[in-house]
């Protein structure tokens, strides 16, 4: 039976999570140079198109279908092209089954989009789309199956409330691999590459935080105590992460930074994701605070290293996800809906958490590498030097983000070589035009 309160919560949560991907586009877009902001944003928007359709046609079935004998590793094909997904209440809870597909789809989409931050300002758009299409099927769907689809990690008892492993460790590692395979930007390490629009970054962070309430709260699959707990924890962890990050910033440079605050909020959100419905609110504060430390240190190191994970996807999502997965094993509490964790005397859980994280790390790392190699064997992964210098907006999309139109000459042949006659401005009907 479909229940109206729960259905409403899942409807709203799904819309909120969907909004995260355009939010990510703004977050990432603000962090790059003005000459590549559109390309960067298109990498997220493209995931909405490509990732969404792939999820409908194939991904969902592999993640949530019944895999039969393969069930520990992969789902079956019975939901190919949305087959068998109806409007009755399904396994997810007292809301239409198709809505569960949609909710999960928004997760698949943003996971793919997250990866793009490692390869901005140089990866070719077509190659990127091809990669994430394959990646959604080959990497995301299986790992989602392991944890949420009845696969081996769920049987093992790994705790991942809303996707710390499936989404964040997974995307973070894939991003790391992409940064290495695609290689650094030519200017990287030689010139300062600075965010062109920090207010856009803060706007993106705001939409991410807002959407994350749906991401974590909706993962309760009910409008109940569990949802409320996940919600409150999603509010507290980034607050704590922000405060700690500001202190670390002050210690390092004497100043708290806006980009730092936006980053910290994301790190806090990432870290609480696997734990949201399993730890107490004070646990959430602790997780947010602690998770800020490794990520802050890693980002400081990374920018001086040769590793051009340009928007620090690994440092924020990969490492934040790792911290979150382990801290879930520490703070999980029976009284708050979780298996007991380390603090409640269950050492084992921490091991299970580590194992799940390692499994995702290994599989995602290897499979992402192979997929990039595969795509790279068919089409070049990188834009050429000149395109990179000019900026990918013009080179890959034939557009500029910000233009006055000065010096732009109208081509009236639509680019196909045949010049149309110069159009005469339409006479206003009835002589309104002066």
């Amino acid at each position, binding site marked *: 039976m479909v229940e109206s309160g729960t259905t409403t919560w899942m409807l709203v949560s799904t819309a909120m999570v969907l909004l995260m991907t355009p939010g990510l586009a703004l977050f990432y877009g603000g962090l790059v140079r003005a000459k590549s902001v559109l390309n960067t944003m298109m990498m997220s928007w493209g995931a909405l198109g490509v990732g969404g359709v792939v999820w409908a046609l194939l991904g969902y079935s592999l993640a949530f279908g019944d895999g039969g004998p393969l069930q520990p590793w992969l789902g079956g094909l019975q939901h190919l092209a949305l087959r068998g997904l109806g409007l009755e209440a399904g396994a997810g809870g007292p809301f239409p089954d198709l809505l569960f597909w949609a909710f999960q789809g928004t997760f698949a989409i943003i996971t793919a989009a997250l990866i793009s931050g490692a390869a901005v300002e140089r990866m070719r758009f077509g190659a990127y789309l091809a990669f994430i299409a394959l990646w959604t099927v080959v990497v995301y769907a299986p790992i989602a199956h392991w944890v949420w689809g009845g696969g081996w990690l769920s049987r093992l008892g790994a705790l991942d409330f809303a996707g710390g492993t499936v989404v964040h460790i997974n995307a973070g590692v894939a991003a790391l691999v992409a940064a290495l395979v695609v290689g650094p930007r030519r200017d990287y390490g030689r010139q*300062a*590459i*600075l*965010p062109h629009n920090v207010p856009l970054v803060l706007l993106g962070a705001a939409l991410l935080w807002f959407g994350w309430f749906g991401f974590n709260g909706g993962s309760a699959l009910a409008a109940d105590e569990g949802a409320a707990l996940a919600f409150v924890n999603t509010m507290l962890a980034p607050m704590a992460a922000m405060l700690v990050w500001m202190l670390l*910033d002050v210690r*390092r*440079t004497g*100043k708290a*930074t806006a*980009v*730092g605050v936006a*980053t910290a909020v994301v790190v806090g959100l990432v870290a609480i994701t696997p734990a949201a419905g399993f730890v107490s609110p004070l646990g959430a504060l602790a997780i947010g605070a602690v998770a800020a430390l490794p990520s802050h240190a890693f*980002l*400081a*190191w*990374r*920018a*001086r290293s040769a590793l051009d994970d340009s928007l*620090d996807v690994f440092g924020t999502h990969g490492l934040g996800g790792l911290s979150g997965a382990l801290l879930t094993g520490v703070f999980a509490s029976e009284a708050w809906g979780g298996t007991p964790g380390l603090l409640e005397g269950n050492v084992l859980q921490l091991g299970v958490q580590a194992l799940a994280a390692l499994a995702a790390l290994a599989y995602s790392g290897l499979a992402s590498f192979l997929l990039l190699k595969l795509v790279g064997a068919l089409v070049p992964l990188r834009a050429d030097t000149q395109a990179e210098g000019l900026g990918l907006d013009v080179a890959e999309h034939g557009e500029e983000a910000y233009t006055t139109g000065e010096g732009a000459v109208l081509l009236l042949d639509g680019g196909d070589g045949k010049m149309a006659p110069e159009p005469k401005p339409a006479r206003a009907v009835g002589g309104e035009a002066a």
Partner: protein
Amino acid sequence: MKLIVAIVRPEKLNDVLEALFRAEVRGLSISRVQGHGGELERVETYRGTTVKMALHEKVRLEIGVSDPFVEPTVNAILGAARTGEVGDGKIFVLPVEKVYRIRTGEEDEAAVTPVR
């Protein structure tokens, strides 16, 4: 005819404009530039990236004047743009061979004399 190019602090621009108008200099063009001089460099940090910013925001004025106006113009700028701190800027006086007013095609002195 001379072209006076002045680089001043943005926060002094309005004072400079006022001084120029008071000196009856009414034609000019300005633009934003970034300058390097004796100013202290400032350090900025974006995540792990720390940079030294070698350029500072300045405003550039470009003023075409007839010869008798050169001195008043320079003095107006010198007076209004000075703070005494490093970074106040420079004035360059360039020779001009010809000036045209586009609206009328008038040349030289006539081209820079304001219409009433």
